[in-house]
């Protein structure tokens, strides 16, 4: 704290705020960089643990990250894609859009790869799907997502998992 000398007979305390402002600005910049304010593709769910899972390297997947569709399977079995809800349960077909119909439209936007010899059905799509399922959700919901993918020629799928030890 700087004070004027007694000679000047004027006690005017002035706090030097410069270092504090420097630190606070640095903190703000840090939190702005590390925070995820609106990540619509990835929902907050508890992923299952798998220590042998491949690490997802942002920007390191050969440039085809744009072709990866994140499908979130929520704890109750509801499907969320880019923030919108879909369903695979026939009883909920009137309340939410049908997942297979969405995937049909989505896969149509990507080129089709040549089918393998003897393969029947829809030619394989270049679209890749990553299924992020809550660890407690019944597997039938994940199976239904797989089924919807196969029906639309989406064979490149992966299951998301956390590598953080559950303990």
């Amino acid at each position, binding site marked *: 704290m700087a004070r004027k000398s007694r000679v000047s007979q004027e006690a005017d305390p002035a706090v030097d705020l410069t270092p504090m*402002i420097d630190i*606070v600005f640095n903190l703000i910049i840090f939190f702005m960089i590390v*925070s995820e304010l609106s990540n619509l593709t990835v929902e907050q769910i508890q992923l*299952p643990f798998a220590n042998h899972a491949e690490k997802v390297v942002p920007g390191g997947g050969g440039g085809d990250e744009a072709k990866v569709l994140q499908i979130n399977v929520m704890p109750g079995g509801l499907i969320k894609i880019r923030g919108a809800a879909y369903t695979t349960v026939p009883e909920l077909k009137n309340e939410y859009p049908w997942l297979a119909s969405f995937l049909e439209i989505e896969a149509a936007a990507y080129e089709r790869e040549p089918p393998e010899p003897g*393969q029947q059905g829809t030619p394989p799509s270049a679209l890749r799907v990553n299924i992020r399922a809550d660890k407690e959700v019944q*597997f039938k919901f994940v199976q239904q997502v797989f089924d919807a993918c196969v029906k639309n020629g989406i064979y490149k*799928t992966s299951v998301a998992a956390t590598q*953080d030890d559950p303990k």
Partner: protein
Amino acid sequence: MARRKNRFGMDEPSADLTPMIDIVFNLLIFFMCATKFRTTEGMIRAFLPKNRGQGSGTPQIDLNEIRIKLLWCDSSGRETKGDQGFVVVKIADQVYNQPGELEQLRYPETSPMWEGLGAKLADFKAGYKGTSEKGLPVIIDSRKQVPTKYVVCVLNQVVGAKIEDVTFAAPEIEY
């Protein structure tokens, strides 16, 4: 802008920093609260069968394939269709856990049973005498009620055993 006299008696401009500091502190608190640090997220590739499963042609059956079953059983070990049940992992006739053994653990993902399953799969892979180019085919056949974490645990051990030909069995068709 406030002014004060310097030692030469001249006016020295000084900015009032209070509003800026208020805003900066508010921003800091906001970002501190809104920050969610990323957890290490990985993925396990699960290429779906193009020539097997629902809606495809004649299935190619490899007699050496391994089918890992995740059954949904009651406490007596009998399969149940209800939502309440226990997971039982089985390959052929070998049962890897008793009903409720995994569920009673706080972190069933860390049970030593999974390592045992992984070691067994590595043995199967080493002893594979089939003709498939991709090596030992493994089918994960899970009942629909099984929580996904157990299926991923099995998939994790299959990947850990360096088995490349992994497929999920088609869902059961109810009559």
